[in-house]
């Protein structure tokens, strides 16, 4: 038996609700995007319902401590198809057992969630580290990114707290939405890039006159800080995988 949901978090939680109402035995959960009908397997389409979802989420809050609620949310943001099923099974497992069952690292769903969450947290951390703002002519600090996972919701507070006195935009070019901090709140935005701005072509945005100066100084600094006698390219690449280089001012040719 396969449950199909719309890919949203409330949808996933509703699926758990439906399962407990019906107790249909072993079920696997797939999102509508990845579902391919199989001839011999039954399926059931979950209709997302926010009341049902809320009840399941409340239930989880009663069962799990904060750190595990966070892991749950992170695993969801991974957007990995198998992660949805693990989340579904994990939730059922947690509800069917005594409090503390999430510490059973011998359980396949527990381990899987911990792993997805770790990858997502790593990507979040990398975005916090590797994002480079450019100061635009209209005074906004802008960056475009395309993270492996949907981490914008996770990094929003970090940037809001840190850059409280400057307007900034972080735009997810892959998922086509962004965050704009307007000196008081963070709003979700979509930008219509008439000129086709992408991460390789940020010059299409008009930059502040000082921007060039500071990006050159930063590149200089990056070079000066290196100790040639200690060169270790492998270690360097392990810390800064090549796919992130496009973000880094210091990695662009001057």
């Amino acid at each position: 038996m396969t449950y199909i949901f719309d890919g949203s978090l409330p949808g996933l939680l509703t699926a758990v609700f439906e399962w407990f109402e019906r107790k249909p035995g072993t079920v696997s959960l797939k999102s509508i995007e990845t579902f391919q009908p199989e001839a011999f397997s039954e399926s059931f389409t979950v209709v997302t319902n926010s009341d049902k979802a809320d009840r399941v989420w409340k239930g989880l809050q009663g069962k799990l401590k904060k750190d595990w609620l966070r892991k749950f949310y992170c695993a969801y943001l991974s957007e990995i198809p198998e992660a949805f099923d693990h989340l579904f099974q994990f939730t059922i497992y947690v509800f069917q057992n005594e409090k503390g069952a999430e510490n059973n690292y011998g359980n396949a769903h527990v381990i899987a969630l911990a792993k997805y969450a770790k990858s997502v947290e790593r990507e979040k951390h990398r975005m916090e580290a590797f994002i480079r703002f450019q100061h635009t002519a209209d005074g906004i600090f802008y960056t475009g990114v395309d993270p492996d996972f949907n981490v914008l919701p996770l990094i929003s507070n970090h940037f809001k707290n840190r850059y409280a006195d400057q307007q900034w935009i972080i735009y997810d070019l892959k998922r086509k939405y962004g965050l704009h901090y307007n000196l008081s709140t963070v709003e979700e935005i979509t930008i219509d890039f008439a000129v086709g701005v992408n991460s390789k072509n940020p010059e299409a945005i008009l930059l502040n006159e000082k921007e060039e100066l500071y990006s050159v100084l930063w590149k200089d600094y990056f070079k000066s800080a290196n100790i040639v006698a200690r060169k270790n390219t492998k270690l360097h690449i392990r810390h800064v995988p090549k796919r992130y280089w496009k973000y880094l001012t210091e990695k662009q040719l001057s």
Partner: protein
Amino acid sequence: MSFDRIREKLNILADAAKYDVSCSSSGGTRKNDNKGLGDSHSSGICHTYTEDGRCVSLLKILLTNHCIYDCLFCVSRKSNDVKRAAFTVDEVVELTMNFYRRNYIEGLFLSSGIFKNADFTMERLLLVCKKLRLEQKYNGYIHLKTIPGASDELIKEAGLYADRMSINLEMPTEAGLKLLAPEKSHQDVIKPLAFVQQNITQFAADKKLIKHVPKFVPAGQSTQMVIGATPESDKDIMYTANAFYKNFSLKRVYYSGYVPISNDSRMPVLGTQPPLLRENRLYQTDWLMRFYGFKVQEILNDANPNLDVDIDPKLSWAIRNMQHFPVDINKADYKMILRIPGIGVMSAQKIVQARKFGKLRIDQLKKIGVAYNRAKHFITCADSPYQLRDYQGTQIKAFILAESQSKYLKTDSNQLILF
């Protein structure tokens, strides 16, 4: 400011500062509660890595590389023929703010050569901090060098604005230091370290009684020793480190493999490779002391004054102490599990939690993250294969080396991994 001149200054003053290896931005607790710029992330963030693989988290610069001293191991020494430069206070403030705004850095690491005298230098460093904090509402990280010989008043005031302060031992022993810098002594370091430490303790005590006590060096103090410029043993180095951790509650001791910068006959000559593997072994030992519950005497002692080169110190210890093994994963204390080669802090914690739900098997240990091929020589678990004979420590070492050999050959010999 003129573009070319500021570029030149930055090149000179960043280049001279890079031998201070600390770039940690951790331990800060400053919140952005004045709607200014920046906060500090308690675990620190590396914004990029140099091509030698070191974390870049802070804008690390000297205020000036003019210096009245002549320490042989230092590029800024008076007698060295290098270009000299000095930033103005405002230049440092502007650079810091602008780098920070673009998310290049977590903060500033400001040090300086000593010009005129200690107080004159310290005053200027203090001025940078005050401008950043008070005029610019900057709440990012500041790591400030304590200038040896500066007055208590200046040091104490600086502690109100800096997150971390540090002062380097430079050489691991007094004898080593005297050899290369006759004008200096470990006492010059101990006095300010102790003074800052007393104040940290005092502010913490006041905080318990009074609500609004300002922060004082919230990320604590650190120091650095240069390794391989003078002939100390690993035991000398780590015993010094241990004493400084204990006596001054240091947050970190850094070990910096000496990179030859001069042809003086008292030190390794130009072109000598910096001792990177040795440096790594020292960091591993440091980790074992701080996070794995080892006493330094267990790892280094008169019988073993230097760390093994071919295996890490945790494995060395295990092999020398086979009487403690094998350890039963399903029963042993957390403390003992931490001592098993191939098991790190995270895995040890997971093991202790997971075994409450049933005896752990090999496949579960692997999933938890245990390096099983290494650990298997030292443990038993629910489905351990029955072992006919006990192997000697030396045989186990040979197995592990043979196994890691192929991997080792493929990777670069100076690729450094912790356990």
